[in-house]
């Protein structure tokens, strides 16, 4: 297995009085796509937000590229090379698609060739380039959110349930985009409920329950083991397949 | 005792002692003190305990900031005052004026609440500020009715006049005249209103208010219409402030913008609640008494300090008695930061 780009060791996170993460241990190998599965409320989104510094862990270490980032502020974590696509997408609806992309490109105006590469997967973004992002459809917004995360090369991308409520045709586009990103060497940590989508892309998988990682495996192995799927994921499988 | 205090005890020995002392002194004030100054202060404390307690219903128990509390206080004062002024000194005028003021106050509170609390609690602070300032200007401008900046002096019913004697002979060396009767009316009403407020905050209604303050979303999720509860609290607090204003007018036999509507009074109320302790009615009583006592004292102290620093740059100006508001402001800001639970909170923490 490739060396780890991101490691979480014994991470605890409290939100108000609630103890959400109760000792998460997670390794994300460099260059691969790691899928984080689990029931609703298992702590997947909180794990991503904790990595991003949007919640501060109360205990534990978060190591990214050899550096402890657990105490850093969100902007510093982003600048260290992590991009984040939240579940709610975080689109600036008052800004145009172009302006959204401009903000995502920290180093200067977005690179032309990179944009063309993005447009190849998400042609709608080229079409609606100077429209306010607020008028895009849900799927188009999701494309914009992912495009924003990759407008400049980043070492690690955190993506929270990109397929939620998205049409199957667009999901296929996303599979293409993520596969291409993997080829480019980008590491991806993907929270997903859609097992088909996860199985198509994942290299490794971690399953969460009650604020802990309870199972780690290669994705292919879990995809082949129906008994383990039922045991670990239960009804969520049927509900989301 | 359980019933009288609605099961809400001071929960600190020192606090109990302080409250007991306050109650005893206020109850016996006409017999303890001679001068008009002292008895005026006692009456003012009675009125402010009610006013500040009613404000604490909003700030401390419901978690909303209103800048219109003096408007309701003023409504009470003007209601009773103008009724006595224009209808003559009868009890009917007192009752009529009070009823009108109560109705106007509650309706106004309802209106403001429905407009601002429906959308966002933060609107409430701004809208109350705007409405209250418009009201204050209105009261000053409509001088035909309100007497403008000068206000109105009026005659009170026979029973309350200084010349009236309840009993011919002095009792314990004090003449029981109309002023003493008025004082006891003020005192008894204040005590009753305070106990009623205590009952309200310890009722199921009061507990819902506190639940909303702690976590609005959760209260909403549990099925409580937070807007209705907040609006009801606003109306209740407004009604109580109207009553406090009416008591004040009866005591002063005068009503005017300076004594009821000015923003300084609003600031005093805020300071009293914060210093006494937000979210405890005992804090309102302690804060009101302490600040009213300190005000005259502080100003005298500042006069001395200003004289002592004469000749130094800027310091005499900063210590001039007219600048006491500056120091109250500083005190206010620092107590919100460093002393958010107020005196009562500290006393309770110490006794635990």
């Amino acid at each position, binding site marked *: 297995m490739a060396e780890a780009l991101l490691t979480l060791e014994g991470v605890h996170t409290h939100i108000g009085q609630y103890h959400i993460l109760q000792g998460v241990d997670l390794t994300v190998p460099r260059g691969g796509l790691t899928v984080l599965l689990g029931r609703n409320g298992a702590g997947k989104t909180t794990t991503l937000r904790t990595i991003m510094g949007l919640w501060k862990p109360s205990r534990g270490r978060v190591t990214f590229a050899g550096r402890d980032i657990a105490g850093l*502020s*969100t*902007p510093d974590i*982003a600048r260290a090379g992590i*991009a984040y696509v*939240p579940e709610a997408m*975080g689109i*600036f609806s*008052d*800004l145009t698609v*172009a*302006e959204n992309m*401009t*903000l995502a490109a*920290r180093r200067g*105006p*977005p690179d*032309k060739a990179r*944009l*063309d590469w993005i*447009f190849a997967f998400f042609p*709608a973004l*080229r*079409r609606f*380039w*100077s*429209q306010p992002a*607020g*008028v*895009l*459809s849900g799927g188009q917004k999701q494309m914009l959110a992912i495009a*924003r995360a990759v407008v400049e090369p980043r070492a690690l991308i955190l993506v929270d349930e990109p397929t939620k409520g998205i049409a199957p045709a667009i999901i296929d586009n996303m599979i293409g985009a993520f596969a291409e990103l993997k080829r480019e060497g980008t590491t991806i940590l993907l929270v997903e409920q859609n097992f088909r989508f996860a199985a198509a892309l994942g290299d490794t998988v971690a399953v969460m329950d009650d604020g802990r990682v309870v199972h780690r495996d290669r994705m292919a192995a879990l995809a082949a083991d129906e008994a383990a799927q039922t045991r670990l994921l239960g009804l969520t499988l049927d509900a989301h397949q | 005792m359980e019933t009288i205090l609605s099961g809400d005890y001071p929960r600190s020995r020192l606090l109990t002692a302080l409250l007991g002392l306050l109650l005893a002194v206020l109850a016996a004030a006409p017999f303890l003190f001679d001068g008009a100054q002292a008895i005026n202060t006692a009456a003012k404390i009675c009125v402010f305990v009610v006013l500040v307690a009613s404000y604490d219903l909003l700030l401390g128990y419901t*978690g909303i*900031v209103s800048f219109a509390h003096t408007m309701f206080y003023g409504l009470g004062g003007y209601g009773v005052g103008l009724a006595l002024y224009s209808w003559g000194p009868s009890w009917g005028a007192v009752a009529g004026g009070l009823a009108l003021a109560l109705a106007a106050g509650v309706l106004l509170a309802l209106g403001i609440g429905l*407009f601002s609390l429906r*959308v966002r609690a*933060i*609107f409430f*602070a*701004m*809208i109350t*500020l*705007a*409405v209250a300032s*418009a009201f204050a200007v*209105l009261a000053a*401008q409509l001088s035909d009715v309100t007497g403008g900046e000068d206000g109105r002096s009026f005659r009170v019913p026979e029973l309350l006049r200084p010349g009236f004697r309840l009993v011919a002979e002095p009792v314990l060396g004090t003449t029981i005249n109309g002023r003493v009767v008025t004082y006891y009316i003020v005192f008894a009403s204040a005590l009753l209103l305070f106990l009623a407020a205590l009952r309200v905050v310890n009722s199921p209604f009061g507990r819902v208010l506190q639940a909303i303050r702690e976590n609005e979303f959760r209260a909403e999720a549990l099925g409580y219409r937070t807007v209705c509860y907040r609006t009801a609290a606003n109306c209740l607090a407004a009604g109580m402030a109207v009553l406090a204003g009416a008591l004040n007018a009866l005591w002063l036999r005068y009503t005017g913008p300076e004594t009821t509507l000015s*923003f300084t009074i609003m600031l005093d109320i*805020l300071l009293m609640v914060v210093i006494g302790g937000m979210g405890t009615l005992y804090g309102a009583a302690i804060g009101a008494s302490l600040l009213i006592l300190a005000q005259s004292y502080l100003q005298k102290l500042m006069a001395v300090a200003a004289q002592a620093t004469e000749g130094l740059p*800027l310091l005499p*100006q*900063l210590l001039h008695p*007219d*600048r006491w508001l*500056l120091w109250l*402001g500083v005190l*206010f*800001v620092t107590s*919100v*930061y460093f002393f958010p639970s107020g005196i009562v909170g500290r006393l309770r923490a110490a006794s635990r």
Partner: protein
Amino acid sequence: MAATSPATTSADSLPEARRDLAPLLVAPVLMVAALPLVGSLPTWVTLTVAGLAMGMMIFVIASGLTLVFGLMDVLNFGHGAFIAVGAYLAMTMLVPLAGWVQADSLWLNLAALALAVAAAGIGTGVLGFAFERVIVMPVYGEHLKQILVTMGGLIVAEQAIHAVWGGDQKAMPLPQALRGAVVFGDVAVEKFRLLAVAVGLLVFAGMQLVLNRTKIGLLIRAGVENGEMVEALGYRIRRLFVGVFVAGSALAGLGGTLWALYRETLTAAIGGEVMVLVFIVIIIGGLGSVGGCFLGALVVALAANYVGYLAPKIALVSNILIMAAILMWRPQGLYLVARR
């Protein structure tokens, strides 16, 4: 700033981006409706110009406050302190410049004003920085404490002005060339009002330019909508916020100076007076919206002038009535700013 824009035209239709135009019509409708009520055209012109001037001044003061709220959810009740301090600083600056102020040269007059405004802007900017650090920063995310503490800050600032400059009313003389009125036929328009309108339009245009054409502006607009995402993209929103707070304070100082010149007198209570109007304006406009704030300021000021002429007795409550009417129409204000 325009990013590389692929020149594409496509038949693909998008749900038509509906521009919300109704709020833009409020002020013109008000102006037209007032004409027959006022009856005489010259009076109407005078009232309208007065309303526009007043509206611009309120806008200059209120714009910073509404942005600060939008960006960090901080409502600064102490904003009035900057209005007052700015006006007093400008007055102090004008004293040694009395020669220029009284000179019969428009350029010397304007130079004196520019220096005074600069003093006001810089002074209140610095004060704003200190205010943010000392008063506001410790109470992020706590509305209740914010309201109390910033209100306390306003009181302290007002009293400090009393201590430094004295409590009496000060004269704030208009420069020679700006006194009096320009007459077109039988319509007389006060010169200073024209200047105030010009300054207000400049500030509005400048703000629009910054907000729409610079990366900082994009960040501010994005931050108003979703500050967390701005941080996740790698920008420090704290710095952005301090910058906006300082700029807003400086604008309040500028607006305060204009307001004092408009009144030609000055007391420490000026901050509190104007703040009431400012709050009404930003509520009407929709908290956080600069465009709404501009429209709200015009509506409030125009109405105040028309009603003041038509029915002086109810002029005082007209603002409240307008606010009530607009909130009945749109409970969130003219423009709703999307929130996270």
